[in-house]
């Protein structure tokens, strides 16, 4: 049962979490598991209606920076247990990630990445083009310069994970309100003291911003300036076919990715460098475009000619909440007690949220320092050189 409350919101709460996607629900569950009592989650539409429900469901450890690899490794270990923890099948399937390139100048990058991943305990390997054919019969390997394969990576069904967290939230007494929008936040000096919603006011000492592409607009209400930009990314599914594709195939040269879902549908997307980005919610445009379908189809057939006769069935768009280094922003801000954010996942929220939420809940409730959260704090953009992982695709 995930039956959700209707009617007014409670007058007080120990924490208000904004966003009913994977970040918000996972954070609420992790806080409740650690003993926090009255937790309210606000979702303005339906659960998973933002970026979580639009995403491709990929979960991978193949990155080029140590921080990303270690966090992703922790995430895969968590996803391996998540169906049992939540009491709902997440359809997590470890078919592997096959990361290919057509660009010979990227081969050293792949080899260095494999070496670093191995040092971090990730079971990835470098593959010559002809070896890829064993993994994906029909793949156009003559185009490829080389590839990297990680057998432990995979995919899950985003809505199942959202519903699983919602179910766990209900068991733990968390109150999840859908069709409920946050209107304003009140502060007293340096403290969060309450929120105003479309279902009434809540007095609360904690506000946790898990609003995804809307996080920037929410942060602005409490005077926090986030550098996040929002981008439209499109994705599609084909009709269902019998299983023919085991791993997720992703190209760091063309930007395409595609996998086969548990229902047999081919699911994939491709980045478009011509897409604009926005910085305010009133500018968002998530309409589908014929341009995407045409570009995706070309790239798909280039990489995988047998797909020519398959049929695209449905396409849609979602938003990435992108930071300057394509890594999330976690933690709080100095001088504003009770405000926390998990945002800016830059297209990788589904794969990282469960572990980010777990670390954040521990950090919020114990106040103990967490080296991952410290490395992903908002002030890093003033402090550090911006380093973008070379395996950010799309």
């Amino acid at each position: 049962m995930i039956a959700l409350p209707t009617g007014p919101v409670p007058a007080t709460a120990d924490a208000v979490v904004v966003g009913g996607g994977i970040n918000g629900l996972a954070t609420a569950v992790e806080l409740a598991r650690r003993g926090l009592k009255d937790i309210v989650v606000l979702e303005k539409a339906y659960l998973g209606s933002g970026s979580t429900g639009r995403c491709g469901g990929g979960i991978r450890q193949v990155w080029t920076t140590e921080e990303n690899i270690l966090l992703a490794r922790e995430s895969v270990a968590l996803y391996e247990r998540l169906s049992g923890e939540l009491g709902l099948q997440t359809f997590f399937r470890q078919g592997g990630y096959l990361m290919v390139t057509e660009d010979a100048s990227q081969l050293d990058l792949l080899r260095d990445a494999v070496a670093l991943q191995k040092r971090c305990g990730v079971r990835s390997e470098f593959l010559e083009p002809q070896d890829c054919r064993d993994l994906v019969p029909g793949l156009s390997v003559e185009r490829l310069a080389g590839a990297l394969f990680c057998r432990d990576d995979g995919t899950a069904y985003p809505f199942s994970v959202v519903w699983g967290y919602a179910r766990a939230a209900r068991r733990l007494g968390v109150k999840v309100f859908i069709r409920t929008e946050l209107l304003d936040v009140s502060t007293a000096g340096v403290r969060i003291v309450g929120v105003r919603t479309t279902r009434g006011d809540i007095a609360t000492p904690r506000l946790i911003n898990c609003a995804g592409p809307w996080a920037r607009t929410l942060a602005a209400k409490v005077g926090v300036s986030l550098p996040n930009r929002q981008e439209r990314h499109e994705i599609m599914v084909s009709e269902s076919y019998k299983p023919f594709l085991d791993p997720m195939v992703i190209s760091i040269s063309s930007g395409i990715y595609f996998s086969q879902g548990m229902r047999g549908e081919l699911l994939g997307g491709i980045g478009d460098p011509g897409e604009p980005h926005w910085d305010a919610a009133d500018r968002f445009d998530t309409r589908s475009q014929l341009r995407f379908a045409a570009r995706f189809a070309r790239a798909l057939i280039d990489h995988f000619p047998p797909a020519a006769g398959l049929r695209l069935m449905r396409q849609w768009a979602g938003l990435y909440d992108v930071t300057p280094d394509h890594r999330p922003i976690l933690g709080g801000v100095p001088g504003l007690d009770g405000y926390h954010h998990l945002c800016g996942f830059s297209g990788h929220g589904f794969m990282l949220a469960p572990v980010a939420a777990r670390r954040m809940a521990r950090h919020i409730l114990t106040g103990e320092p967490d080296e991952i959260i410290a490395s992903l704090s908002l002030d890093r953009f003033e402090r550090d050189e911006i380093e973008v992982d070379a395996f950010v695709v799309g």
Partner: protein
Amino acid sequence: MSKRIMCRCEDVTYGEYRAAFAEGFTELESLKRYTGVGTGFCQGKGCLVEAALELSALRGVPPEEIRLTNIRPPVEPVTFADLAALDPPPLIGELERARAAATPPSGDEEDGS
């Protein structure tokens, strides 16, 4: 549990649909994802109205109060070969985007609002 079929593409029965409603899936968008109603090759042309009317009965509200799911392109499945033969058209222009910002682009796309 009723074995009458609601969605022929995905083999979803009225019984399964009602069970999902009883579990707490009270909106068409969520019922669609949980049961698979309307996600097969006809994309809801055969069952979306049935699903909306049944939800109206389950919730005890008039049909006009049931929010339909977003309608996604294409109208019918199209081969990748046919799509690849197209010259990719340009992105929806900045001019149109400015106009869209002034008036919300489409009433049924609630995420865009």
